[in-house]
């Protein structure tokens, strides 16, 4: 895999400098983020919280290269994301960012195993046989190896989200972003899912998660609270001390 090794990575895996995002629309449009500065060190589990419309998902989308800032800079793993064209962005994202969605977004016609193999296929990280072995390994890690051959529709919500996490980890990206990954799960499953995400930071991976969960402080190293497109809580406030290195 040619993702950046930990030694090659900058200290701050995420760095946002004066980021503003305005969506065009009637009456001058809607500004979701206003001059946001944020630095997230390697291995940190950051939870982004805030009310609906506060700009949480926009922030996550900018970090994942799903959206582009109207002003400012977004550096992820040292790469200025806004400078990449769509095609290079996709290739870059495939190797450097794992994305977990609220509604899992597994491809319905592929088995769970094939869903996990797909990022490796697109990015050409491993030949099919090795990709399959790695996918099985990841599914084992997330605890659903026995469901590998099933279609996503045959799995429970929690199992689907586990599969989605395994898929996000397929290319061993240094950054995992998750948009309300527990929003569609019952509370027990949500707890387990948060633990699973937290466990991925042990190997130095960074997790940026948008959530409404109140108990997130149990697993997150810090909380970033957004209100009206601005960070209202100091960005560097340690919450959890186990695992990961953070500045």
């Amino acid at each position, binding site marked *: 895999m040619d993702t950046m090794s930990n030694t090659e990575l900058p200290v701050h895996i995420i760095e946002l400098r004066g980021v503003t995002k305005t969506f065009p629309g009637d009456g001058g449009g809607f500004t979701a983020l206003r001059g946001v500065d944020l630095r997230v060190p390697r291995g940190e589990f950051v939870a982004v919280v805030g009310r609906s419309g506060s700009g949480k998902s926009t922030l996550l*989308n900018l970090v*994942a*290269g*799903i*959206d582009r800032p109207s002003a400012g800079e977004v550096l992820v793993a040292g790469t200025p994301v806004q400078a990449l064209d*769509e*095609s290079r962005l*996709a*290739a870059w*994202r*495939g*190797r450097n960012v794992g*994305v977990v*969605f609220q*509604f899992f*977004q597994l*491809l319905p*016609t*592929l088995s769970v195993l*094939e*869903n996990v*193999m*797909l*990022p490796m*296929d*697109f*990015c050409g990280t491993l030949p*099919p*046989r090795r990709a*399959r072995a790695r996918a099985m390994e990841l599914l084992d890690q997330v605890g659903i190896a026995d469901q590998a051959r099933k279609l996503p529709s045959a799995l429970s919500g929690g199992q689907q989200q586990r599969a989605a996490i395994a*898929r*996000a980890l*397929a*290319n061993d990206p240094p950054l995992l972003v998750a948009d309300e990954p527990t929003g569609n799960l019952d509370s027990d499953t949500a707890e387990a899912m948060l633990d699973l995400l937290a466990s991925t930071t042990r190997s130095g991976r960074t997790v940026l998660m948008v959530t409404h969960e109140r108990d997130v402080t149990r697993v997150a190293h810090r909380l970033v609270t957004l209100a009206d497109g601005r960070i209202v809580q100091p960005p560097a406030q340690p919450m959890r001390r186990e695992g990961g290195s953070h500045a």
Partner: protein
Amino acid sequence: MPSPRWTKLARDVWAERGRVLLMVAAVTVSLVGIGSVLGAYAVLGREIQRNYLGTRPASATLDIAGGIDAALVAEVRRHPLVGEAEARQVVLARTRVGDDWRRTLLFVIDDFADLRLNLFRPERGAWPPPEGTMLLERSAVPMLKAGPGRSVLVKTPHGEPQEVEVSGLVHDPGLAPAWQEQSGYAYVTRATLARLGEAPLLSELRIELAGRPLDPRTVETRAAEVARWLEGRGHPVHEIRVPPPGQHPHQRQMTTILLMMLVFAAMALLLSAILVANSLASMLARQVREIGVMKTIGARAGQIGRLYFALVGLLGVASVLLAIPVGVLGSRAFTGEISRMLNFTIGSSAIPGWVFGAQLVAGALVPLLVAAVPIRRASRTTVRQALDDHGVSADRLRARLASLPSPLRNPLRRPGRLALTVGLLSAGGAMFMTAIDVKGGWQANAAKVYETRSYDVEVLLQEPQPDALAQGLRRLAGVREVESWGYSPAAFSRLGQIDVVRTYPDRGHGSLVVMAPPPRTALVRFPLKAGRWLAPGDGDAVVLNHMALAQAPWLRVGDPVTLSLEGRPTTWRLAGVVEEIGSAGVAYVTDEAFARATGTQGRARMLRIAISATSPAARTLAIRAIDRALGEAGGRVEAVTPLAMLRTAVGDHVEVLIRSLAALAAILAIVGSLGLVSTMGVSVVERTRELGIMKTLGARPARIARMLVGEGAAIGLASWFLAFALSLPLTLLVDGVIGNLGFLAPLPLVISPSAAAGWLLIVAVVSSAATLLPARRAARLVIREALVRT
């Protein structure tokens, strides 16, 4: 092991198998059209060489009075401009068929063992025909209701009717089929001709020019040079007949028909490619979130594009594989029909490889090119756009559409797709209506045979006969009117030069005659295209029919016209041009002027007779009575042609074309209908969530079903109006092509109400069928299922 992305593609194809089959069906159907036409074109092109050119058609026929002997033929063969020569004779005889006499061309052959030009081959029975027997051209068998071993009664111009045994059949690919020309073809020796009462002379010198030139002017110039050389040696040449070099009498028709078919088939392919693009765009629209997810996990636009290009390529290849065998069958059917029209024997039906190559290229490339637009668009969608897509949404609905009724408003939410669907259906409908309208135009033209002529039978005598003959016929029961007309074969001539006519050995195609009706004739009334009709007292006025004008297209009303009548030059002035459907070239002059020019005062060679009987059976009986009376009066008859026979000949010439047009119209109609099925299916799937909401709000399943069926009907109705509007210029275009092909004049524009109503019915059925199934599915949808769909 297959990579996951290709596994996804395979499973998507399976999941969308109905739509994929629809796309394959549409492309296959149009490829079958292309394969059939191209295959037929290739085979016929090859078989024309083998059949017609294989007969060594004479470059020219020189008419030499006084006969041609073997010594003269040998001398002509040594002429430096001549490659080959043979003497023949063609006698216009009559054959008894039941109670009627049928026109029969007797081809007189000097030596069946030494045929040099206009070759024909024995098919069955004797070769050469024993004295007193004849060989029949195979296409004449149904015309003369005779075959090997049977005898028929034959009457030549100067002989008495005699029983002649048919001793065999031949195939003469140089002749148009007998059934089309309503004429029998028979082959006899000189000895048999003598037995039939004719002088056993050969007066036609058929020559093949050295080097076989194919340029008509070169052929005419060199043939004229040979003719002058012959005249210099004491053999006067009355006329030179030059058929279009290297061309079968019906070759132009065949080429035009096939080219037109090809254009329509290509149109069908383009439409089906648009259908593929349309269906694919719908499929992509439903997969847009999946595309977004794939891009999120690292798929580049190119990788996604390749997936869908591969899908379209596979569809194309599958269509080609299905279309090739059916196309081969279609090509054989086409080839069979057209070879029958050309009186060909297809030696080999093998379709050359390039036809399959062309099908492969067309089937694989055209859908790819057309589908490139939606594929490019979908694969370049940004992740955010893709993930934000929720199917068809309200913001797509423009405010100004809000006031429209629901069946119109909903389809307009996807204006691009609506345009494609309506376009597909309209094109199919326009073609369908055009085919039927053109058929109507052809029938209207064929009906002009009756509308412009009030006689029932035309009698051509061998010599001009005194008017007493006509007087006698007037007294016959059932005869309403008899007019005596002057008649003479003719040619446009140039003073001091030998007449050149552009006619085939069957003397029908490209011939010219002068007819001289009484100035106030009540038996014909042809529509004027220029100038005026004949008036009593006209001295030198001549009126040409449009077929004659086509032989001398430089002539304008008022111009002098030099016509050679039986070899004698006469000068006239062009007074007018008429349209005459169902006739060869005719120059009309008044009977008085004709009699003066030919010295036939008080005598006429042609009688046109109107019969009071109205039923076909009574008319036939009356015609037979006329024929008998003529025989008893000693009037030597060359031909008796009931008007109905002319009508049949006109009707049969391009029946194959009309049938082919209808077949292609059916193909387009199928493709158009598949388009509607596809659109309606997609429309329902896209709005599943919305339909779920409607049900939540209390909409009953029946109401949802009614709404969807109403939308299908609205699309169908819109396409019908457009199809009708499109069919008008298209019909005019095809009328022009086919009319000029068959009659040298465009067909009249006929707008068939039954075609319009028929298509409306088809559209109604197709719209209902296309919407009922998805509508039923939508109506039965459980609300929870509908709402969870994104």
